[in-house]
Every structure is written in structure tokens, then in C-alpha cells.
């Protein structure tokens, strides 16, 4: 299939869905509207809401807040995950001692932490960042831990036979291996950073995409909820695209560009 046919088919799916949605929510079938506008709104209203947000410029502030929260959550979570993952992998005793606690904390659905973070850190961006960090941290942590643990025996022996000291093994073998594992989970961890930010905003905040959706929901503005969802998914797709670019740059040495997202 050529690119053009594929693209037109993909567009066709969207068009069919939108047209069906518009028809079913406005034109009565046998005297009954199948998608009551109160619950389902309609594409035209949703689209005009989006246009209104962008033309008035309201949306930029919210996008910016969510972006900042996501980036902070990603950076802090990754940093923590890399450091602790490295430390645990190199110190099996530490890893063994903390193992049950790591499992316990990771088993906890992170959403229940949101109220605690809101209490501790207030309704500003930091409570959202904290929620994102708890999500990102574990993904990066487990990947880095695995990456350091599973360095090929032969490559390690080769490093030793080439005369590497422990420090040089760290720099030339463990570190690149761990980073490659971390980068291969980049899509997942960036995605979770956004999830943390948006869920945090939804549960209590004064700005951000999650806040926008929550506000619309509060006044039964279904068009607003849908508009928020569309903007959010466009936002995530853009970020994901950026991640793909970064990944291509960083993992050139990989046999096949990993396309894994958990």
C-alpha cells in the first residue's frame, strides 16, 4: 500500500466517525436522537470550543503549565530512577534489603497519592510533578536496574581484558547499557509524566489541561470535556513525536529502533 492510500484511508476513518457523530447527535432517527447532545455534544460544537480556546489564547497558559509539570516530572523521576537503579544494581545487598518495599510502593495505584501530595505540596504545580515523578521513577528505575544487571558477560570480560578499571567499566560498559535500557522506555516514561500531570490537575488545581477538563465537567459542558480531550491527545502525540526524534538521535547504534511502548 502506498503512503497516499494509507493516509487517505486513515483520514477516511476520522471523517466517517465525525460525520456519524454529527448526524447521530443532531438528526433524529425514528423520532429519537440516538446521541443526546447533552451527553455527547457534537463535533461542530467541540471544534468551535477548541477554536475559541486558541483564538482567545486561554489554552496556551494551560498547555504551558501541563508541559512544565510533565517535563519536571520526567526529569526528576528519570534522574532518581537512574541513580537508584544504578546503586541497587551495583550493591546487591541494598537491592535485597529494599526489594519488598520497592515492590510495595510500586504496587500502590499512584492516584491515591494525589490527595497526600496536594496536602503536602499545595495546589500548585509541585503536587502534580510529585505524582508524575512516582510514575516515571519506577519505569526508569526498573529499566536501569535491568540494564546494569544484564550487561553481557562477554562484553564485561572484554572490558576487563582490555584493561578497564572498575571506574572505566562503569563509564564504558555499565553506563551506556543502562542508558540504552532507559531510552528504550522513553515513550512509556514520558507518557506517564503527562498522565501524572493531568491526573494531578484533574484532582485539584488552578491551571492545566486536566483543570480545563475538570472545569468543563463541573458545569456539564460536554463540548468542553471533549475539546479538552482532543487538545490533550494532540499534545501527547506532539510530545511523542519529539521523543521519537530524540530516540533516533541517541540510539543510532541499536540494530532496530525500538518501537516498544508499555
Amino acid at each position, binding site marked *: 500500500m502506498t503512503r497516499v492510500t494509507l493516509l487517505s484511508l486513515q483520514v477516511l476513518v476520522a471523517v466517517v466517525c465525525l460525520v456519524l457523530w454529527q448526524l447521530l447527535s443532531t438528526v433524529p432517527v425514528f423520532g429519537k436522537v440516538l446521541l443526546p447532545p447533552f451527553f455527547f455534544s457534537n463535533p461542530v460544537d467541540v471544534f468551535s470550543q477548541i477554536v475559541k480556546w486558541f483564538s482567545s489564547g486561554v489554552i496556551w497558559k494551560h498547555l504551558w503549565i501541563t508541559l512544565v509539570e510533565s517535563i519536571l516530572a520526567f526529569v526528576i523521576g528519570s534522574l532518581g530512577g537512574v541513580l537508584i537503579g544504578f546503586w541497587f544494581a551495583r550493591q546487591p545487598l541494598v537491592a535485597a534489603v529494599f526489594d519488598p518495599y520497592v515492590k510495595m510502593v510500586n504496587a500502590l495505584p499512584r492516584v491515591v497519592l494525589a490527595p497526600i501530595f496536594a496536602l503536602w505540596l499545595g495546589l500548585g504545580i509541585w503536587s502534580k510533578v510529585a505524582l508524575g515523578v512516582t510514575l516515571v521513577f519506577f519505569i526508569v528505575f526498573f529499566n536501569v536496574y535491568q540494564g546494569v544487571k544484564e550487561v*553481557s558477560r*562477554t562484553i564485561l570480560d*572484554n572490558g576487563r*581484558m*582490555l584493561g578497564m578499571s572498575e571506574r572505566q567499566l562503569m563509564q564504558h560498559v555499565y553506563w551506556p547499557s543502562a542508558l*540504552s535500557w532507559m531510552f528504550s522506555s522513553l515513550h512509556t516514561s514520558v507518557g506517564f509524566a503527562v498522565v501524572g500531570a493531568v491526573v494531578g490537575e484533574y484532582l485539584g488545581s488552578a491551571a492545566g489541561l486536566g483543570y480545563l477538563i475538570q472545569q468543563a465537567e463541573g458545569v456539564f459542558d460536554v463540548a468542553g470535556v471533549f475539546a479538552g480531550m482532543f487538545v490533550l491527545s494532540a499534545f501527547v502525540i506532539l510530545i511523542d513525536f519529539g521523543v521519537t526524534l530524540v530516540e533516533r538521535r541517541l540510539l543510532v*547504534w541499536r540494530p532496530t529502533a525500538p518501537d516498544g511502548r508499555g
Partner: protein
Amino acid sequence: MTMPTAVALEDAKVAFRLGDGRVYTAVEKAHLTVAQGEFVAIVGPTGCGKSTLLNVAAGLLRPAAGSVKVFDRPLAELNRDAGYLFQADALFPWKTALDNVAIGLEVRGTPRAEALPRAQKWLTSVGLGAFANRYPHMLSGGQRKRVALAQVLIRDPKILLMDEPFGPLDAQTRQVMGNLLLDLWNADRKAVLFVTHDLEEAIALADRVVIMSAGPSSRIIGDWSVMLPRPRDIFEVRLDREFHSLHREIWSVLKDEVMKGYAQSTQAAEVV
């Protein structure tokens, strides 16, 4: 004139503790010396512990009994005089061919600006001058072996340990690599300990061929000198009459061990 000894295994015994507490003796009382400038090949059936013996010479493994001497000094840790060419891919996948070769010097503290041109020179001498910026996965199996060879040789080790280095390659590539190895070796004649399961390869390359018995508790059961003239061409030398008579002679001993090794490996599979 006798050359000084580069590596000497004296009654080395190698044993592993198995999961169930039993002790598995891989190699028993191995006595083997490699003189400076000598090319020694170890041949044996699969699972006879020839790679194990190489790891002992490298210092990656401690013998359970006996001793290892390198240039007449007992080997206490890693063998710093040795370069090791592994059977499996051992290149750093995140480094380009050039960086993979240069790392051997950089580790030693050679400035990068100085290490890179020398690495480039080595890549050229293994025939990969134009592939400096490729990552290992972009190279063929044979090309990766060439990079690995350059990576080891750039450090100019006095001893070269090779663990079936050309094992994963196809027959033609192996011969080409064999000739490349002989050419490079001829330049400064390092001591070489070369492990292989391919008797022809061993005779074509080496000054001495050492045969090991089937494991466990394998021993060295034969030691032949290869008198074929040097420099050799691997393609040519196989047609030599002396090559054939030596091959017949060694194979008559090796064959029994190969059959034994095969029988044991199938038995072991049945027990498991």
C-alpha cells in the same frame, strides 16, 4: 636456542561447584607451555574445557589446583600481558568501529586525539579503513571479528588468547580471517594460544597442536609439532602432503575423543 616461556600452565585443575553441591572437574592436571613467539592451537571435542583453559590463562578463572605462570611470574589476577579474542561478539555495541578500537588505548590513558589516528591505522590494516563510523550491528560477522582483532592488537599484548574466534563465521570467511591473522602475527610473532574444534584450522595456523580428551576431567593427551614452512597461506597449505599425513595422524587420536564426547553429551541429555 630456547625461547622464554610466555604462558605456562602447571598441573592446572579447573573445577566448578554445581548447583546441587557436587563438584564438576572440567580440566585435570593440564600441563601446557607456550614459548614466546610460538603459535599453539588447542583442539578438542565440544565440552572438553578448552575455553576454560584459556580463561585460566587469561586470569578470568582461578585454577582449583596447580599454577599459572606468565613470563615465569605466577599469575595472581588478570593477565595484563594478554589480549583476548572472544568467541561471542564482545565489541561494545554503543561504540563505532573506530571507538571500539581506540578504547584499548584510551583505557590506558592515551589521549583521544592520539588514540583515534592509531585506531584508524589499525582498522585499515584489518581491511576496514572505510568502516570507521559504522556501529557493530552495521557490520557483518567477519567484519566484527576484524574490528575485535584490531581492538586487541592495538594494545600490543605480548600474548594473544583466542577462543574459537572464527567459529561463528562461514568457511570461506574463516580462511580469509586465518590468513589475516597469520599476516598480522608474522609481523611481530606474539605468543598465541588458539582454541578451536577445527583440526584443519589448527594445523594450518599453528606451530604446535595440542589435543584434549573429552570432558569431564579432560586432559591433554597429545602434542604435535607442525613443521610446515612459514609464511603460510591457508588455502595452499591444505594441499600440502605433510599437512595431510599430520592431519591423519592427529585425527586418529582425536576421533575417539570426539566420539566419546558426543556419546557423553547425548547421555547427559538423557539424564536431564
